[in-house]
């Protein structure tokens, strides 16, 4: 064994080290395979499931197109058609588009940044299974005639109990609800994965553009999804209990829904697009064998898009009669967002010009993406012009626009990515010859299907119509669109045949770096990612360090085997990727799977109003999750380990160094975003119906909120004191004092409003919405605190091993602060304006 001056670890490696690594990372065998948590497997299953939903929603579209191929057609009546278009949109947006790009992140990110797995593997397993079960049952509602009929955007009053009395819309609300939670779990995974688990030396400046795009994608989810979660909750409360958030007869407003939904809905489309653009920024350099031109501009463009996209949502509401001044602002912002996309397009063009394009299937799909997406972006600028939008809003012109940007901007990059990265996950690449046909059918099909829709919309055809009159002259246009749709279907079918023939999943025996690409996911790998974790010195390590692949596979770099006797990976600093500590990772197990199945069951049984069975399933889910949580936070008193290069790193961290702390902070940002939407809703409803608001004299006495605030602050003090005793005496028992204080505080809030009827006015409804949200947060805080106390009692929490307590403490203080804000609004605002 000799040390090479340039390598952290001497070569050759000791016998058995690699075998041990393989053994630890092998997937479970036989039936227990379903308990797998490794991102290589979860990623493939995740992409596969997303693709399944793409095909299913596509079939719905084909049925719709056959119905529309001729005027006054009677293949499908309005009842079924309304379910079809609602499901097509909902499944495509929620069950295909976001999960597909999420899944590509799960599959690629760890390898791409040099980590062995995602930082919370069981969380992504849980998110995947909940998504699979929930999504399939949701889709199956079609076969029972119970699919939602309100459109994917579910506008009230149509979707309230008055006008949609069945459980169809409840399916949407509850079914989509936990898919939203899946997305947030994924977002936490991505942020921590991208910022804390990169290979040493991979500074932010050297990080691949796809990693940037997934980071921004995840941050956008953190701030956008809570708006739709809140809107979903409010609509379900109105449907189930008659709380009139959206009923104008009682002071509510249908536009409140639209603001909340589109505040989510617009960023949603960029959440879908940015990872796709990130993938294109990986494929173009590989296909031209030259680094991405304007790398810094591209990253800045992604960040700018992320920010700007939150300022556009009202462009979905241009026809609602809002004041022209506000419309003008959103018109300008909607145009501005085209600029960052333009920067990326020109960066890709510049990269083509610099290098030499290899015309393979990924390249074809990238050019197809450019043509289709740019056209869609241009019609986007057109609809940003308010008066033009007044004519084409809610017509087939917008259907054309959205399909051009979504199919062009996401589906084509996804196909490019599948052709590009199949050699990374499979023994064989896909067929180039068949790939050209797939591309050709899809490219021509998309244009034949959707270009005529620009004309159809201008000719007067509105959206969401199950038929149209013969005398309007739309027949030929619709027939052409139908033919195009079937061409797309043929392309996808051909792709599926080739995929089934060629794709054989393998991380170890994959087809290898067939493109001679430069980024780390193309290192020789196994289930454990690469044998050792490289030291990165540039953006395309495989191009700039010629021996990298060999030296990594030989184990010359960091962590060439297991350092802790189990699965582990390196945690590094967020900006400069300096190694900080070694994270012990879990082995596969049943709790995430069981938890996911029973969480899905809970939500679905609740949709059928089978409360007792739902509660039973919820209980099982909670037990599974607690069992899982109990195995978190491993012992802290383990000696530091050597990873090579003279580095001995700890295997435990607390505070901001801990990945769990990061997860909790991100969760708090999600919560803050949701609560911000709740505060907005309160003020909005007051603006719309000030008459529903009480005078100061009619409010509950000021004693109530003061007492509640006092209890809350006292509980925080108790938690703070428990922190002190933990540091000094190794126990956190004073935490127990905080529990009754929190309960008392919440009881005080409820008692204050006992005479207020939530069903009578929008004021009553929104105040009770605060109680529901505050109660939920208090409950979670109690669970976290009790959990920490239980750990203490079991001897699993002490002065050094304290992550469980720290997370409980963070959440507690956050809940107190949030609840105080709510108290201020509910008890202070009416007094202020009186």
């Amino acid at each position, binding site marked *: 064994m000799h040390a090479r001056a340039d390598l952290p670890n001497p070569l050759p490696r000791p016998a058995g080290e690699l075998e041990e690594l393989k053994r630890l990372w092998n997937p479970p065998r036989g039936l227990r395979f379903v308990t797998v948590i490794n991102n290589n497997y979860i990623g493939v299953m995740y992409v596969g499931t997303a693709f399944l939903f793409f095909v299913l929603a596509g079939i719905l579209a084909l049925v719709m197109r056959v119905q529309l191929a001729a005027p006054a057609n009677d293949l499908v009546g309005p009842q079924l058609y309304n379910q079809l278009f609602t499901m097509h949109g909902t499944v495509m947006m929620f069950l295909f588009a976001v999960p597909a790009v999420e899944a590509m992140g799960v599959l690629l990110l760890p390898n791409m940044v040099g980590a062995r797995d995602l930082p919370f593997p069981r969380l992504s397993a849980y998110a995947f299974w909940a998504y699979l079960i929930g999504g399939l049952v949701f889709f199956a509602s079609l076969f029972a005639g119970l699919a939602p009929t309100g459109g994917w955007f579910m506008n009230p009053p149509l979707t309230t109990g008055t006008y949609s009395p069945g459980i169809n819309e409840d399916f949407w609300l509850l079914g989509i609800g936990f898919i939203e939670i899946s997305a947030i779990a994924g977002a936490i995974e991505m942020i921590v994965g991208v910022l804390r688990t990169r290979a040493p030396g991979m500074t932010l400046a050297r990080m691949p553009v796809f990693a940037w795009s997934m980071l921004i994608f995840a941050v956008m989810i953190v701030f956008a999804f809570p708006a739709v979660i809140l809107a979903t909750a409010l609509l379900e409360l109105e449907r189930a209990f008659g709380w009139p958030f959206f009923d104008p007869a009682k002071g509510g407003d249908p*536009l409140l829904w639209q603001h909340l939904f589109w505040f989510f809905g617009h960023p949603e489309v960029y959440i879908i697009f940015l990872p796709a653009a990130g993938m294109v920024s990986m494929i173009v350099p590989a296909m031209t064998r030259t680094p991405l031109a304007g790398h810094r501009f591209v990253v800045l463009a992604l960040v700018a898009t992320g920010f700007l996209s939150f300022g556009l949502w009202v462009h979905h509401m241009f026809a609602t009669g809002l004041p022209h001044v506000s419309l003008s602002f959103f018109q300008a912002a909607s145009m501005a967002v085209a600029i960052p996309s333009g920067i990326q397009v*020109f960066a890709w063009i510049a990269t083509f010009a610099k290098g030499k394009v290899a015309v393979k299937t990924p390249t074809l799909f990238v050019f197809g993406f450019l043509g289709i997406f740019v056209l869609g972006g241009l019609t986007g600028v057109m609809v940003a012009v308010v*008066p033009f939008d007044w004519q084409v809003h809610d017509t087939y012109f917008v259907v054309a626009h959205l399909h051009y940007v979504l199919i062009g901007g996401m589906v084509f990059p996804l196909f490019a990515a599948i052709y590009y990265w199949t050699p990374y996950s499979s023994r064989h690449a896909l067929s180039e010859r068949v790939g050209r046909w797939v591309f050709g059918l899809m490219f021509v099909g998309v244009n034949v299907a959707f270009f005529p829709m620009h004309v159809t919309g201008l000719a007067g055809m509105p959206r969401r119509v199950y038929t149209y009159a013969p005398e309007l002259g739309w027949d030929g246009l619709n027939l052409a669109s139908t033919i195009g749709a079937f061409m797309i279907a043929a392309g996808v079918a051909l792709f599926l045949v080739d995929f089934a023939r060629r794709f054989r999943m393998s991380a170890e025996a994959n087809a290898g770096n067939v493109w001679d690409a430069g980024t780390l996911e193309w290192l020789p790998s196994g289930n454990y990612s690469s044998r050792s974790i490289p030291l990165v010195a540039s953006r395309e390590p495989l191009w700039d360090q010629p021996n990298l692949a060999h030296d990594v596979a030989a184990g010359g770099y960091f962590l060439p085997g297991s350092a802790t006797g189990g699965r582990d990976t390196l945690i590094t600093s967020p900006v400069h990727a300096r190694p900080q500590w070694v994270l012990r990772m879990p082995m596969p197990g049943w709790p995430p799977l069981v938890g996911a199945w029973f969480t899905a069951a809970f939500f679905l049984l609740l949709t059928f109003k089978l409360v007792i069975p739902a509660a039973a399933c919820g209980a099982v889910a909670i037990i599974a999750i607690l069992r899982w949580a109990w195995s978190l936070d491993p012992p802290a008193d383990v000696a530091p380990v050597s990873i090579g290069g003279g580095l001995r790193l700890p295997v435990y961290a607390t505070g901001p160094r801990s990945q769990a702390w990061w997860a909790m902070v991100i969760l708090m940002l999600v919560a803050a975003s949701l609560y911000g939407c709740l505060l907005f809703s309160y003020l909005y409803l007051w603006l719309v119906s000030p008459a529903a608001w009480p005078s100061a004299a009619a409010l509950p006495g000021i004693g109530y909120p003061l007492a509640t605030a006092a209890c809350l602050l006292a509980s925080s003090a108790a938690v703070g004191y428990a922190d002190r005793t933990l540091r000094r005496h190794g126990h956190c028992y004073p935490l127990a004092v905080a529990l009754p204080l929190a309960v008392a505080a919440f009881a005080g809030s409820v008692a204050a409003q006992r005479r207020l009827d939530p069903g009578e006015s929008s004021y009553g409804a929104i105040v009770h919405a605060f109680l529901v949200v505050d109660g939920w947060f208090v409950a979670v805080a109690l669970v976290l605190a009790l959990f920490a106390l239980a750990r203490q009692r079991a001897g699993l929490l002490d002065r050094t091993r304290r992550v469980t307590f720290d997370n409980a403490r963070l959440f507690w203080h956050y809940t107190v602060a949030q609840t105080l804000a709510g108290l201020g609004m509910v008890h202070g605002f009416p007094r202020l304006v009186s």
Partner: protein
Amino acid sequence: MLASLLEGQQSVLAPRGPVAAEIAQTAWVLFAGAAAIFAIVLALALFAGFARREWAGQLSEHVLIVGGGIVLPVVVLCVLLAWALLRFADLPLASASERLLAIRVTGEQWWWRVEYLDANGQRDFAAANEIRIPAGRPVELRLESADVLHSFWVPALAGKLDMIPGRTNRLRVRADAPGEFRGQCAEYCGGPHALMALHVIASDPEAFERWVAAQRAPGREPAVALHERGRALMLAHCAVCHTVRGTAAAGERGPDLTHFGSRRSIGAGLAPVNAGTIASWIASGQHLKPGNLMPEFAAFSGAELHALAAYLENLQ
């Protein structure tokens, strides 16, 4: 295909009023601009990818990314924004003091309640699914909803404006010349949203005044015994939901039928009005417009339907 676009009754590019005409002109400018930019970007991409490397290499990375990606869009978008804002800053159809004919249009599932208002904003007379306006004069449409979201859209005259319960949105339109235009509900309202259409008929001012006078009159008296039988049936079965002024029928749930016989369509744009379509609608309306809120009256005998349809057709 092109005919429906350039000449159709419901086409954005076949404007018949000043508001729609402004938008149509804007549309053509936007198309031209978009086509030009698309052609340039596509040409650049293909050139960069497939031209000879010596030529492609001439393209400066900096000029492409900063020039093409930042400067060009910023300039184009600023010009577009300024032009759009200026162009639509004011489109006065009438002076501020001019009192316009006001018509309240209420979206219902799945038809249009039309009420002409007098000078005090009170209902002068009611109609349904059809609006007549004097050509060359601006009118104000007060858009409301009785139930869910709808959207009023007659492309030949103006862009659409949503009908939101709890709010009144006002849309001013003017038809340049006499003509007939078609519109459709443009906000998904459940069920047979696809079959919620309306007609707007612009007539020269004298013809319009005659029409108004005729509308104000009560429903035409039966001319023959058949109509008498029909009226008796109407009073017995239809009066709960429908109004025929001049009779005891004063229901407000469904469309006003006082002058139903002279309308362009039955069922909100579904079919022309004649005894046959009226009878079909009454007996099997759910087949024609599934889910609509009028129950089917399958219990009528053929003779009864015949009488009822004849009476209603006579309500000119």
